[in-house]
């Protein structure tokens, strides 16, 4: 299996601290890779470096074997879907307008957009009659489904999710987790998923990448992490989270 995204010695420093030390990572095609770790460990930074919301200080990012530079990034972004907490919907646009925004911008035909919209509603289990609502008129889970539709609209090769379910209550969260997993499987989607919740990571992750303090500590399956921890932090993190999940 070839890597869709490859980070080579990528690092990022802010004025006061290093957010990401020189890091190497491959995101495999068709798999869900989960980045997990405590707050401030650099997992969101890594995601944002891939879609170039921030520029790396050193190293390179390759997408499909192609070096990502600022020249080609705006075209590349159309091949990458990006979903954040709450969906990142624009409040002045209806759900439909949010989903179609980019497709309109690049001049897709109305028919094509309409067909894709029906498909996405079905895929994300979003009621079509709510498409004309504004984000404030939707529930948190519905907003997240719209955010997902918007990210999937142009059938991206890569889907980046930054704690997409973080702001939802447990019941909604559980049902969305289930739906998301089905969607990823159905689309054979390459996904890079950021979360701080170990149970969620285990549920989604074909591969789990545990990060701490700007570094990748260990990469592997949950069994690897549990049974062959590379570092005391790995056990500490897993035990702490298990404690929370069990109580």
């Amino acid at each position: 299996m070839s890597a869709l995204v490859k980070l080579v010695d990528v690092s990022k420093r802010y004025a006061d601290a290093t957010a990401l030390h020189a890091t190497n990572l491959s995101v495999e095609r068709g798999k869900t890779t989960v980045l997990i770790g405590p707050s401030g460990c650099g997992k969101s930074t890594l995601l944002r470096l891939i879609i170039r919301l921030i520029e790396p200080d050193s190293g390179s990012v390759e997408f499909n074997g192609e070096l990502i530079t600022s020249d080609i990034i705006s075209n590349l972004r159309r091949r990458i879907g990006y979903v954040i907490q709450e969906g990142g919907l624009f409040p002045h646009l209806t759900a439909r307008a949010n989903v179609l925004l980019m497709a309109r911008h690049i001049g897709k035909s109305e028919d094509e957009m309409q067909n894709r919209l029906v498909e996405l509603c079905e895929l994300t289990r979003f009621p079509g009659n709510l498409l004309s609502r504004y984000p404030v008129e939707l529930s948190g889970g519905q907003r997240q489904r719209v955010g997902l539709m918007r990210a999937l609209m142009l059938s991206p090769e890569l889907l980046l999710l930054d704690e997409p379910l973080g702001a939802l209550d447990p019941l909604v969260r559980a049902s969305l987790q289930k739906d998301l997993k089905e969607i990823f499987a159905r689309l054979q989607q390459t996904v890079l998923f950021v979360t701080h919740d170990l149970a969620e990571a285990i549920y989604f992750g074909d591969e789990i990448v545990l990060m701490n303090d700007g570094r990748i500590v260990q990469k592997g399956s949950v069994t690897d992490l549990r049974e062959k921890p590379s570092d005391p932090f790995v056990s500490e993190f897993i035990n702490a989270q298990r404690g929370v999940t069990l109580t």
Partner: protein
Amino acid sequence: MKLRCLSRSGGLVSAAGLRWLESRRSLVATLLFLPVACAAADPVIIGSKKFTESYVLGEIARRALNDAGVAAEHRQGMGGTIILWQALQGGQIDAYPEYTGTIEQEILRNSKQLSFQEIRDALGKFGVGNTEPLGFNNTYALVMRRSEAQRLGIRSISDLRKHPELKIGLTHEFLDRQDGWRPLRERYGLPQQSVIGIDHALGYAALANGSIDVKDAYSTDAKIEQNDLEVLEDDLQFFPKYEAVFLFRSSMSSDAINGLRRLEGTLDEKRMIHLNMEAERTKNYTSAANLYFQNNGRSASFAGESFSHKLARWTLRHLELAGFSLLLSVIIGIPLGIVASRGGLIGQGILGFASIVQTIPSLALLALLVPLPFFGISVRTAIAALFLYGLLPIVRNTASGLQDIPRSLRESAIALGLSPATRLWEIYLPMASRSILSGIKTSAVINIGTATLAALIGAGGLGEPILSGLNLNDHITILEGAIPAALLALLVQWFFDALDRVLIPKGLRI
């Protein structure tokens, strides 16, 4: 004549501004060369200073020219000496009434008395001609309540030396003039310590209620009679002669010049006092001016402009001033706000500049623009000042509206792959629309209020009745301007509230 002193009579605010203008006279005179060619078909523009007598003389001139078959318009109450003189030189007006003493002291800046021929020669060098005296001398005088003067036995200015406790209230112009208070006090050795500057019209009220005991006046002032005041004799002959004449551009048509010449020697002091009284009593300069023609056996009266017509004219001009300046503020302010929202030195510079402009008192801003080339005494000066004034709320609200957009949404727009222009137009500006519109609304309301000051530089609007009301100490006339201006501000507020519903995207209003 003391007419100049009256020019401050447009209220305390205007008095301060005009005084400033006067003090900048020399700078102004060197800067203001606006060559304006007057086509033959253009009407002759008569200017007048901001006090009753000048208004009346301006109306008389307009009527006299019309009667002579020359189209003429009267721009009332444009300000003080220096403003009128500049406007005459710049060609914004063709003629205005002036006084010989003022010409010597304030225009030619000559400290000794000049003969009439010397004045004529000196003015000729500026391309300005003058009529012979109209017939009355309106010199400065000091006045007191008659009862008080009799009680203290004061008849002349010299008698004031014996009463150092008297409180003196003087117009700002008289306080500053070369032939004003300071040399007068030296000449007479006056001991009074309590000397304050006060607006001319308000000064009469202060005199009546005893807040002050002595004030300056001019000898044809109708209020001397009305308020039962004693004119103190100028026993040392300190005050120069102030004979009324018309100044005009030498390039004016000979028909027009002859029309003005017909007024020479036709108005004595008694007659002028009577016309001034009529003007103040009826609040109608046109009808007072018409009395001049009736008594001269000329054809009778023009009806004055009806109130509704005047109100429409003021309001339209007011909207024109406020609306056009607002449009400029929006066109310039929003892009500046967009740049400012990005922060950095340039952003701070823009916000800093706009804030500083806002701290300049609006009147001072007007006064600062007048001496600049291209501006001068004109509507565009008023619009430029209002534009600068309206800038800050729009720039600031645009910048803060954009800065308030959450970073996560900005990043979502970037991550989607939208181009920078699309992000701005379709995402950021609509999201900031509420803030931007509220900035525009603030500017609009400020502009409606501030536009009343435009009348000070002859730009018209609802400030016109407010100024003449202050001049006449007539509250009704003030309200004729103030109430419509306040209503207009309310209407503008409502209009923008309604506009919110159209322009702010629905998703932001739920």
